[in-house]
């Protein structure tokens, strides 16, 4: 077996994995604070990707595109919370889940209507020169994406551990009514959680868009969120990182070693095989919150 080739696959897998973790983070933030499962996470990534590409193309500035995308997602999240999610507060969780599925379809339909269906380029201001690390050759877009992902993950880990707002959000996820009796303005923190997810998703959209190009297909990366969060645990940031890394590496190894033997395609479903296995062994993920049962 060629060790250099394996290394390359693993290194690429790690970079991609961190970028998966970034998207999964958006999902985890919402679940952690509001207990809602956001089935529109892929569209939450696609939409700011398209916005960034359109603005960057028109203004000829990547940074402007990225900034507008982030700002637009914050605005969108607040609006969404106010108009759709707040009225569903106190209803069964399934109502919110259904609403996000509907939202996904709406975003997938309206954005191409507004901005066209043809793929748009979104180039990072880094050049295309591959980065050489030892014997490895890495794509700059991937390295940048992984770096952005890593910083977002560190910031949010700190936030939930040490910031009082973060503690209040975790309290709210545990028991909304009790949290509100502690003075936590539940509706406001709901909106915050969605806005934070919006920011993370916008970053994900920009970084993924820079790597893959931007069109409606970008929403498909959202599908990878499920194996990532099931492996790592729905409400754990550390779990999202680990889940992302596992999915990224497994995917790359499958692409490098199994695909040539069977004619391709295993890359796309290998993470799901792991996901199903994980559900059987540790239903709450590797770092997810166990249901506490006292006896």
């Amino acid at each position, binding site marked *: 077996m060629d060790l250099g080739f394996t290394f390359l696959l693993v290194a690429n897998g790690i970079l991609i994995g961190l970028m998966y973790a970034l998207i999964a983070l958006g999902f985890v933030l919402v679940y952690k604070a509001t207990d809602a499962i956001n089935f529109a996470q892929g569209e939450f990534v696609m939409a700011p990707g398209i916005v960034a590409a359109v603005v960057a193309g028109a203004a000829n500035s990547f940074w402007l595109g990225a900034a507008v995308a982030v700002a637009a997602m914050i605005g969108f999240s607040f609006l969404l919370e106010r108009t759709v999610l707040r009225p569903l507060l*106190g209803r069964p969780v399934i109502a919110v889940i259904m609403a996000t599925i509907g939202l996904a379809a709406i975003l997938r339909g309206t954005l191409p209507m507004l901005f066209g269906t043809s793929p748009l380029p979104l180039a990072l201001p880094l050049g295309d020169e591959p980065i050489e690390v030892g014997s490895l050759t890495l794509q700059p877009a991937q390295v940048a994406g992984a770096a952005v992902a890593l910083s977002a993950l560190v910031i949010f880990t700190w936030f939930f551990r040490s910031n009082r707002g973060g503690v209040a959000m975790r309290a709210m996820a545990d028991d909304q009514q009790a949290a509100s009796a*502690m*003075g936590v303005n539940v509706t406001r923190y709901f909106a915050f959680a969605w806005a934070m997810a919006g920011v993370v998703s916008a970053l994900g959209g920009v970084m993924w868009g820079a790597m893959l190009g931007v069109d409606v297909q970008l929403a498909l990366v959202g599908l990878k969120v499920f194996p990532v969060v099931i492996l790592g645990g729905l409400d754990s940031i550390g779990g999202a990182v680990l889940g992302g890394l596992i999915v990224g590496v497994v995917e790359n190894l499958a692409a490098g070693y199994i695909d040539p033997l069977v004619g391709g395609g295993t890359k796309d479903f290998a993470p799901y095989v792991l996901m199903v296995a994980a559900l059987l062994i540790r239903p709450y993920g590797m770092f997810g919150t166990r249901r506490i049962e006292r006896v």
Partner: protein
Amino acid sequence: MTAGSIAGPTLVRRDDAAPAPSVLSLNNVDVVYDRVILVLKGVSLAVRPGAITALLGANGAGKSTTLKAISGVLASERGEVTKGTILFEGQRIDGRRAHEVTRLGLAQVFEGRRVFEHLTCEENLVAGGHLIADAKAVREGIERSYHYFPRLKERRRQLAGYLSGGEQQMLAIGRALMSRPRLMLLDEPSLGLAPMLVEEIFGIVSDLVARERLAALLVEQNAAATLTIAEHGYVMENGRVVLEGPADALRENPDVKEFYLGLNEIGARKSYRDVKHYRRRKRWLS
């Protein structure tokens, strides 16, 4: 309807005592759930400062609903106050949202403790001090809660979900204390606890009330223990206040003895079935 009018002699007529300034007063409060289910019917009560007021009654009498109406969490259960007023230190608080009521200086300890299970003991206290802006004051609040409940300090890094029932109850009270309330609503703190623990917790509650210049409204089914630490008491049935009076008078009241202390005139215990039968015969609720 006047409290106590059906149950025989009224224990205390509110108008013959000088009107003590109450921290909290409910005047003819009706609560409706889901827009149709009338749960509280004209409830009036007052909580006096610096003392424990007891709210007694059987399951489903409306005690918890009364507390939720006061603290404002009713809205999240699709209930609302449709009639009457609730005044906290002279301000109307009916219809306000829970976090606003908390900001005014009122804290609630929920039935079943409701600690944040996946937060550590200390994080629970931090969450309880959410409204305190100053980080140093939060620190002091945590120390004060540890002072009253030293066992919480030993468990500070443990997840609250893994604490024992008694420790969780202490945490729930310590957490409510964090916002420096002037009125604390306690919903069945004795629920599911061993008698010795109940005694300990009741002792700490009366200590708290005495030292922190706190008023407390204590909802309980454990009437005997409650009436020993309370100054005044109300008895609810079917969403109404049916009896009220000073705690010692309530303790001596034959109906209270019969229904809530489980004693008859000779002091012998009666079975619940007899009590129910007696109740049906007397129909003191009308």
